[in-house]
């Protein structure tokens, strides 16, 4: 029997026409729309701006400007700080929720999982817009504070601050963080926890020495999926951030809009991708140190 199966393995009979047809859509999208398009950005980053689509010459001037103009250092640093704060805030607040889902939720687990992932599928623009009406001068928060007698005057202090950007982004990307942590926690063998408590570990020790290290791959994955979209965001700074919250994504956007210097915008994009690559490598390294099971 096994000899017959061995002689008629699927690979032996797989038709090349089927394979080609099945590989074609994915190959077109990944090679053309992802790799070739990113290659274009890289190419454009080394060109000079003459108003034409692909620029002229071959130059490192764009990167020289990014490296020497303190404006770009300030904005990059600000983007990193804002994205870093948002990442830490979302991961730290999401962890207990994931922990509850994995170990305590019981029969409500399915419903709770659905409830925490549902906002993920609602409009990002509307979630940011919601914060604009909450934080505005004559908005929800100010009026509620005055109504309840806590404050007598509306304050401008909420809107158009970097803090508003951090809160809004943390809220907009909160659902991203729960799922990876939950998956990591859920795959920890229950016997590991029992062994820890049998061997006399107090709940906190068991958490610190067993649960937390084992969930690190999920935590790092969560940090990554929050960090990447936030570091390049330009909508939230424009809606609730004001001029003091300009982020690197806003600069890229304006190079392809008002400023109309595509090669320079491409160079900024390459810098962002390099920063993300660095963060991914650090996360990979940390993942390995924690003895990843994935």
């Amino acid at each position, binding site marked *: 029997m096994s000899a017959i199966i061995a002689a008629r393995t699927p690979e032996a009979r797989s038709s090349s026409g089927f394979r080609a047809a099945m590989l074609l*859509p994915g190959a077109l999208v990944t090679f053309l729309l992802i790799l070739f398009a990113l290659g274009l950005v890289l190419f454009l980053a080394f060109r000079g701006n003459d108003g034409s689509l692909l620029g002229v010459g071959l130059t490192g001037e764009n990167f020289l400007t990014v490296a020497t103009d303190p404006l770009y250092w300030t904005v990059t640093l600000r983007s990193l700080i804002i994205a870093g704060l948002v990442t830490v805030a979302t991961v730290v607040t999401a962890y207990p929720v994931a922990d*509850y889902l994995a170990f305590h939720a019981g029969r409500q687990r399915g419903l709770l999982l659905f409830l925490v992932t549902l906002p993920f*599928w609602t409009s990002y623009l509307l979630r940011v817009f919601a914060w604009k009406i909450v934080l505005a001068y004559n908005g929800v928060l100010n009026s509620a504070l005055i109504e309840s007698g806590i404050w007598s005057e509306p304050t401008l202090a909420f809107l158009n601050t970097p803090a508003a950007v951090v809160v809004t982004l943390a809220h907009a990307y909160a659902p991203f963080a729960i799922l990876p942590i939950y998956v990591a926690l859920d795959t920890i063998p229950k016997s590991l926890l029992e062994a820890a408590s049998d061997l006399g570990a107090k709940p906190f020790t068991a958490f610190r020495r067993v649960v937390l290290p084992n969930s690190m791959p999920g935590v790092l994955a969560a940090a990554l999926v929050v960090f990447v979209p936030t570091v390049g965001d330009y909508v939230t700074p424009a809606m609730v951030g004001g001029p003091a919250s300009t982020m690197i994504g806003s600069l890229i956007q304006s190079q392809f809009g008002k400023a109309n210097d595509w090669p320079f915008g491409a160079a900024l994009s390459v810098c962002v991708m390099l920063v*993300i690559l660095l963060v991914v490598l650090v996360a990979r390294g940390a993942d390995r140190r924690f003895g990843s099971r994935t």
Partner: protein
Amino acid sequence: MKRDGRWLGLYVLAYLVFLYLPVLLIPLFSFNDSIQAAFPLQGFTLQWYATLHGNPALSGALVNSLVIGAIAASGATLCGITVSYMDLYGRSPLAATISAIARLPILIPGVIVGISLLILVNLVGLGPSRVAIVLGHILVALPTTVVVMRSRFAAIPKTVREAALDLGASDWTTFRRVMLPLSLPAVLSAFMLAFLISFDEFIVVFFLAGTEPTLPLYIWSQLRFPRSLPTVMALGTAILAVSFIIAGTAEILRHRGLGATRRNPT
């Protein structure tokens, strides 16, 4: 552990309130009889919903969003099905590479996806257009459709496919008559989620839209005018309701029929 769980339960409740409260303010103030979104509430009205009716710019954007969403979701679902199927059963480095690259957009900020496609569509002569938006949204939805389809295909016992092949079905027949029908709920789920992603997407579409805006771009253009704020909230409420319904249905579909195959996971 039990007491621990109760405190944690309260925390989860507070977390859910934080997650939903700002979003639910949009429907709340969409029924409020005032231009300002502020307390105290001024009384119930449906007038903002009435302003949605008979607005050609709005209905044009809606039609655009629906058409683009349907086409982009079809493309992303097709790619999700083929990429994940070949990744699991194709046994070729090329298929594995394609699958890995298909999930790469998660690691690229939307602004860079947007500008890279903007350069591409200008290079091939398309320029910002509805076709460009469709391409962008296929890309943005691709990681989701690949992940949904891959987990579904992986949940079908290996023996099912092997039996079909051993009984003489060709690769194509096995895929079309066995594997695809078994994954139909996931296909629908992937399509609906991809449609939602396209329907709500703003960051990438901002760069790729020509003269015909989608619904999120229409909302963005209205945000400049304080007077149209209540109309935006009425529109936002309708969009949120549709998103909740589609996402809920997709979630139910994704888990449906898994019980039969779960007994024998591979």
